[in-house]
């Protein structure tokens, strides 16, 4: 390649790096945070030994090391761009004959890898497991002596299997391409031997490591769900080998500059299409809400909801929590989309994502044991058996609040082996030691004050109103529990229970939604509005009359929503319809 071509190539790599960075930093940052919260990277020898002592362990350890920096999305995006560009450059370095067209082809694995990382369960170590074999293949190529090279390559196959898992096959394929293309005589026999050796590695590993052959063949820590084959990752790995193979072929006609540029254009279009298709905006939206809940960005949650009304139970529950934490739940809840009590307190789902933000709600409500259970269950449900720094932190907090200091200190000790949680954990442990924890950590003091002491119950999804009521009975200043209790009744359309609980509400004037609910109950139980309690505004009576007239006139739902969409009456008639009216 000419110097101009080399510069153009480097510019293309840089442009791809920038594109990957921009994508993850601005369009997909919460996936970056999501990755970080499902691991606990400890700087200890024990952790290193535990992680690396499985096939693919070293790549996994390096991947986890990188992932801890995803604590900050911009840093994570830079690292993601570096990984992707690194793989592309390594493929280029492994190519035998170089041209602009081959350089363009090296972007194919990088594109596939970017698309793979749009999946929140793709683990960073998988990119390392692609890069390391490529790097080894490039280095081996530099060994001049054939015999030495053969020995090194043979030794590297099992070593790379241990370090990178079955993606060591990439090394075998690339090295085989080079041997066959560059060698004389029967180099293909050596290449075949390497392939056989690579195929034997998982079988031999099955005698040493406690994993099924299937998992040893498909990779243990490439993907969060161990039993699923990450097709896109393997596509990227095979593309690496295919590009190197193409570069080894003796093609007489080389593409000229213009067709090569056209190839770039096609790849840019394909890459953009594939990445956007692989991206999941709905998940990103939920992760955004979960992140904001984690960081207690209550105002940002409401601003986000004002821009785009959340419409699934997980995001709606985050919004409702933000409203409650800012004291706006009674007044503003029905200004946003609501569709049942699952949007207030989502039902328990035993996986590693659903209990996360729901556990935050219980934590802020003062249901400490439930928050602890949700954090523990979410952590236990992480499919690849990793631990989570976020959950360790919450478990330390719940145990501190419950007075289980020895257990809490155990979690804090582990967190002190991390980079980003060390400071918090050390400070907390010091506060425990000098007995000023609850003075210096008001959130913990609040949880301690709000938890139940006199009453006990076994948690039940169906008796949420009783549990919320008890919180307020023991701690009348826990107004959030009352807000949730009233909202729970309203969202379930249980107006009788709502009326029973109304005396617990101290707000004056009565929130708009409460007045609307009471009016509705009044209509159901009275002939007319005579004797209506004075705390119900007459203007609401007039609005209800108009609402009923419009509803009786069978106006369409969209017309009704435009006029009454923010009223409880609209919710009552048009939302949460799976419950028998």
């Amino acid at each position, binding site marked *: 390649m000419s110097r101009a071509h080399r510069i153009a190539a480097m510019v293309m790599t840089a442009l791809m790096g920038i594109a990957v960075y921009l994508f993850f930093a601005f369009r997909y940052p919460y996936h970056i945070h999501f990755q970080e919260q499902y691991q606990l990277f400890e700087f200890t020898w024990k952790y290193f030994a535990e992680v690396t002592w499985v096939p693919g362990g070293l790549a996994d350890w390096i991947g986890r090391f990188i992932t801890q920096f995803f604590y900050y999305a911009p840093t994570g995006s830079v690292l993601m761009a570096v990984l992707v560009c690194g793989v592309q450059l390594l493929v280029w370095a492994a190519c035998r004959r170089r041209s602009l067209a081959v350089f363009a082809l090296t972007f194919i694995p990088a594109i596939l890898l970017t698309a793979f990382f749009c999946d929140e369960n793709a683990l960073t170590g998988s990119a390392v497991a692609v890069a390391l074999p490529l790097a080894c293949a490039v280095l081996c190529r530099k060994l001049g002596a054939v015999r030495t090279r053969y020995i090194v390559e043979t030794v590297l196959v099992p070593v790379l299997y241990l370090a990178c898992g079955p993606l060591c096959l990439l090394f075998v394929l690339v090295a085989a391409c080079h041997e066959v293309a560059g060698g004389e005589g029967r180099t293909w026999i050596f290449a075949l031997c390497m392939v056989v050796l690579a195929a034997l590695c998982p079988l031999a590993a099955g005698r040493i490591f406690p994993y099924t052959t299937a998992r040893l063949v498909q990779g243990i820590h490439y993907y969060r769900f161990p039993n699923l084959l990450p097709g896109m990752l393997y596509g990227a790995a095979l593309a690496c080998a295919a590009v190197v193979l193409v570069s080894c072929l003796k093609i007489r006609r080389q593409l000229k500059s213009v067709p090569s540029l056209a190839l770039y254009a096609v790849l840019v279009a394909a890459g953009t299409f594939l990445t956007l298709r692989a991206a999941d905006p709905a998940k990103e939206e939920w992760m955004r809400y979960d992140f904001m809940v984690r960081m207690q960005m209550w105002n940002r949650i409401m601003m986000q909801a004002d821009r785009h009304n959340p419409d699934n139970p997980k995001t709606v529950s985050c919004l409702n929590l933000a409203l409650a934490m800012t004291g706006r739940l009674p007044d503003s809840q029905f200004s946003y989309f609501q569709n049942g009590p699952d949007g207030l307190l989502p039902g328990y789902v035993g996986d590693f994502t659903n209990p996360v933000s729901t556990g935050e709600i219980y934590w802020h409500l003062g249901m400490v*044991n439930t928050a602890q259970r949700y954090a523990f269950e979410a952590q236990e449900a992480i499919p690849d058996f990793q631990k989570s720094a976020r959950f360790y932190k919450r478990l330390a907090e719940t145990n501190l609040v419950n007075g289980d200091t020895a257990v809490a200190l155990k979690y804090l000790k582990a967190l002190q082996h991390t980079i980003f949680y060390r400071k918090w954990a050390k400070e907390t442990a010091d506060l425990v030691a000098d007995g000023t924890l609850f003075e210096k950590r008001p959130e913990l003091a609040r949880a301690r004050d709000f938890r139940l002491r006199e009453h006990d119950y076994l948690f039940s999804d169906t008796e949420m109103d009783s549990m919320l009521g008890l919180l307020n009975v023991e701690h009348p200043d826990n107004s959030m529990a009352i807000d949730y209790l009233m909202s729970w009744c309203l969202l379930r359309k249980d107006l009788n229970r709502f009326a029973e609980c109304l005396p617990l509400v101290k707000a004056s004037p009565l929130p708009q939604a409460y007045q609307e609910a009471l009016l509705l109950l009044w209509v159901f139980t009275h002939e007319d509005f005579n004797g209506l309690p004075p705390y119900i505004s007459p203007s609401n009576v007039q609005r209800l009359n108009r609402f009923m007239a419009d509803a009786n006139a069978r106006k369409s739902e969209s017309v009704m929503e435009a006029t009454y969409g923010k009223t409880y009456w609209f919710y009552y008639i048009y939302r949460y319809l799976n419950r028998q009216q």
Partner: protein
Amino acid sequence: MNRFLCLLTVLMTLAACSPRERDAAPAGILPDIWPDYVGVTVPATIAPLDFTLDGADALDVRLTAPDGTSLRSGGKASTRFSGKGWKKLLHASIGDSVTVTVSGLFDGAWRRFEPFSIYVSEDGIDYGLTYRMLEPGYQIYSFMGIYERELGSFRQRALLENTQFAGCVNCHASFRDDPSALTLHIRGAHGATLLQKDGRLAAYDTKTDSTLGTCVYPYWHPSGRYIAYSTNNTHQGFHAQPDKIIEVFDLDSDIQVYDVANNQIITAPQVKRPGIWETFPVFSPDGGTLYFTSAVQVEIPGELSQSRYSLYKVSFDPETGTIGKDVETVLDAADFNGSICFPRPSYDGKYLMFTLCDYGTFSIWHHEADLWLLDLATGETRPISEVNSDDTDSFHNWGTNNRWFVFSSRRDDGLFTRLYIAHFDGDGVASKPFMLPQRDPKKYYGDLFLSYNVPDFVTGPVPFDKIHAQKAINSPERIPFGFRWSE
């Protein structure tokens, strides 16, 4: 040369100035060591009891046998007794005690504590332990496995881990004298009961049309021909109170006996009564009696705190596999104002150890749970206060010579269960228990987020082919249990 001499002089001066253990001042108190091995009784073949000294910057420990044999260890964090020296020392102390002198470096000065004894029993102990390790959690499980630990060393060997299949592994039980005979359950997508007997391992489907569910708590008959199982419809509840976390309870449970030779579950109406919960079956050492706990069904969750399990027995004829007609009360829960769990008769038939908690059937989550002893000859019961602690002391098993028992305890932090072993003398008195030894125990247990679960003694290494087991679990083939009513 001059430079070297200068350096040597400086180093010697520094060494002379640094505090030395031999200059230690007497502390006048016993050392605060962890694990607490002060005054414990150990078998002569136990692995070195390494420990740390609380608050010390360094420690120096000298062990002395009655014949003057001594062993020294020290360091910054923990002792690290040499295996060979330890073994020699203990053998020189059999029937007597090892004197332990501990010195610690505190704020730049050495203090020497009052010596204490570690008694070395003449009674031998079994080869090792088997146990399950998992996080002490709720409903969802992560990594877990069943392990074997050699008591004479720190070696732990995985028998089966749930990286080998998708699911949970629980309730393992080895036959008393033959570690190769064992049963364990797999739960989840690959649910099965693995049974290994006479060198053959197979996966069974233990649910029959005539029984409540799959087999749960196992106990081998002394002949090895039968295994008593309970079958339980188990649920969990979650408390709101800070001092309670989890409640495990049955909504139904029965007793059944598996006939290994005929592949048949045997049960009888008297151990499968409607409105009555029966669980934790165990055979007497002569094989002629089946003990179990039982409670009258209560409303859950409202009356859970009134759920109290008593201890019962029924005769069992191993010749015909017949469960007797008459169920007798051995211990009435009302007499204890508590609930009886995990009955375990000693293999000589003299005693029966059980866990007593306030209510319910799963004492592991009850902080008040303690070990109790029933003298089967006199019918007298007593809490084993020699070993009990302020926190949960629960699941236990006897050593095959009845001179040792292992139990799980949450005394150290209130959550993570650790194993303790205690000596039990011929008069029915237990000694102070010692924690399962580890190299650098503070670090080991401090970093360990797994609990020990269902410990049991084994008389030798368990011959278990985990690859064969893995294949059996992941295969869809299950041998169905047959069923018959007891005559």
